[in-house]
């Protein structure tokens, strides 16, 4: 059904009704290849995307290869120490230039005709170059490695954009930026990405992964066995007084204070007595360094931060970076890294790895149930595909709207963060009539939060 703007996408992708207090998402958004392609063109090709962390390429000549928005890239630190992002495609005839996943090199040589490039992008050698010389001066220059048009980083998090006309990164990150700064402030020595990447695929649409991360409502039922494990270790999980925020530009945040301790910052019994001593010392240092007010935000709250469209920061017991790479409407590749304090003592590090991997990861005690959830949604929504009865092929995300009209801050167990995500999504897609609003939207949306 072609949309009114001729895009082939239907209208009424997101339907909010402020009289009935309902918010509904058209399930075509999860299953349509046309929507997937439109997302590639209008979201992934047009906005800042999280590429990787500077510490993944810690020393000059380090590189990683990584596909982003379907495009193979080389993420490297050049011989001068500058971070670069090159299209991993030989300028000659397009061959994948670097076929390794990671390593260290000053030169990338294409195996096909042996053109060689410096990691700064310059052509280093072309066999039988004389044959091209007649073409004139500019030839070598025109054959430099193709850069991703924009690259900027914030607190070590490196972002790229395939569209040169995006606003500066900090402006784009807006209120999300400070939560990334908070992460960098957790430890005086700074944070670094550890080797050992959880790379896995999910049979579900990428947006289900975002919803799941912004959904405190599912925690108790979905993670029943994990909650049971926490309770046995002497920690009572609570959903009270925890909130969700839309940070603007599609970014969103859950602030969690009752879901678990935070290694070296907020002790809980399962961390053990030794860790209690270490935590007290580190926490005192944080108070001195950051002041008690800021230290409280940095240390005592857990955050799940979503940075539109492909980055999730799980700032919980430890810190896990998760990157979403949609590969089809119903398939998403996920990559997750552990971000840990530099020079952490061995006992704390061991505790951190055990604790984080047991919760946030596809082999842990909780994440498999999340994956089960989004895969089960992906299969389940087939039941209403092309159902012509009104409203049948829609998912409901109305929870918390009753409070929203009263101006009460949305809770982590509401669906307000999801609503913000979907409004931004439909706007980014630019489908005419994509968003249908009826009734009076509350004058003031509760967005943002002052933590400085």
């Amino acid at each position: 059904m072609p949309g009114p703007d001729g895009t082939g996408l239907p209208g009424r992708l997101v339907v909010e009704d402020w009289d009935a207090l309902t918010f509904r998402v058209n399930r075509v958004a999860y299953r349509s290849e046309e929507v997937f392609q439109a997302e590639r063109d209008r979201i992934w090709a047009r906005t800042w995307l999280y590429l990787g962390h500077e510490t993944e390429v810690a020393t000059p000549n380090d590189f990683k290869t990584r596909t982003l928005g379907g495009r193979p890239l080389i993420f490297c630190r050049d011989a001068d120490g500058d971070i670069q992002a090159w299209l991993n495609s030989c300028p000659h005839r397009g061959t994948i230039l670097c076929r390794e996943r990671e390593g260290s090199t000053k030169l990338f040589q294409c195996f096909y005709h042996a053109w060689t490039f410096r990691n700064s992008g310059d052509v280093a050698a072309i066999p039988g170059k004389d044959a091209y010389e007649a073409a004139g001066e500019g030839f070598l220059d025109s054959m430099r490695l193709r850069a991703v048009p924009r690259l900027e980083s914030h607190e070590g998090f490196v972002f790229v954009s395939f569209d040169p006309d995006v606003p500066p990164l900090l402006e784009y990150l807006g209120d999300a930026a400070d939560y990334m700064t908070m992460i960098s402030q957790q430890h005086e020595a700074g944070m670094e990405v550890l080797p050992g990447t959880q790379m896995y695929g999910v049979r579900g649409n990428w947006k289900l992964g975002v919803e799941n991360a912004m959904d405190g409502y599912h925690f108790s039922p979905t993670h029943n066995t994990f909650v049971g494990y926490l309770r046995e270790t002497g920690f009572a999980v609570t959903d009270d007084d925890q909130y969700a925020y839309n940070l603007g530009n599609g970014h969103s945040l859950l602030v969690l204070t009752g879901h678990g301790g935070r290694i070296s910052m907020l002790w809980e019994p399962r961390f053990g007595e030794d860790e209690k001593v270490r935590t007290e010392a580190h926490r005192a240092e944080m108070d001195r360094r950051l002041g008690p007010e800021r230290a409280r935000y940095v240390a005592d709250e857990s955050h799940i931060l979503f940075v539109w469209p492909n980055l999730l920061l799980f700032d919980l017991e430890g810190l896990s970076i998760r990157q979403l790479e949609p590969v089809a409407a119903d398939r998403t590749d996920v990559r997750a890294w552990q971000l840990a304090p530099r020079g952490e003592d061995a006992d704390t590090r061991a505790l951190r790895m055990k604790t984080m991997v047991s919760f946030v990861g596809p082999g842990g005690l909780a994440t498999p149930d999340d994956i089960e959830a989004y895969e089960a949604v992906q299969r389940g929504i087939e039941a209403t595909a092309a159902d012509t009865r009104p409203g049948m092929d829609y998912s409901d995300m109305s929870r918390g709207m009753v409070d929203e009209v009263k101006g009460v801050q949305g809770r982590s167990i509401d669906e307000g963060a999801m609503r913000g995500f979907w409004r931004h999504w439909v706007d980014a897609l630019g489908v005419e009539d994509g968003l249908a609003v009826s009734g009076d939207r509350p004058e003031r949306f509760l967005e943002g939060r002052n933590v400085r």
Partner: protein
Amino acid sequence: MTALIGGREITRADVEDFLYDEAEILDAWKYDDWLALFEPGARFEVPATDWKGESFFESGSFVTDDWDLLRARVKRLKSRKAHAENPPSRTHRMISNVRLREADEPGLLRVTASFIVHRARDGEFDAYVGRYDHLLVPGDEGLRFRRRRAVLGHEHLTAGARLSFIL
């Protein structure tokens, strides 16, 4: 192939029987019987597919269970609320290329073997291929795991590949 561990002679057939028994137990979802194959304090590990080192404290991984977590994992798998395994995956395990190797520590036997685990669930059929790298302790009641490690041969876990079951 034979190894002499603490005065006991262990043959490759002994080790193969142990691994085949374990495969049968896991394919039948007998998790208590499975836990009984570990000595108290044992570990269960599945490294990340890009990790080449030894210590899991230096890296991210898929599974790094100490004895506490291993017991919690078993308890979870027995629960009807382990949604990712309810209904449970149907698995079919094949083990080959079993080799006895010297362990760094006396009294321990290092065993490597190839595995293929086929898993059927939700209308999908996925294969997991890799190498076991176990440390075993010979005791009066037979062999026991001190460290059970499954190293995936994949470059990454392909779609549907969550490790909710035991690899």
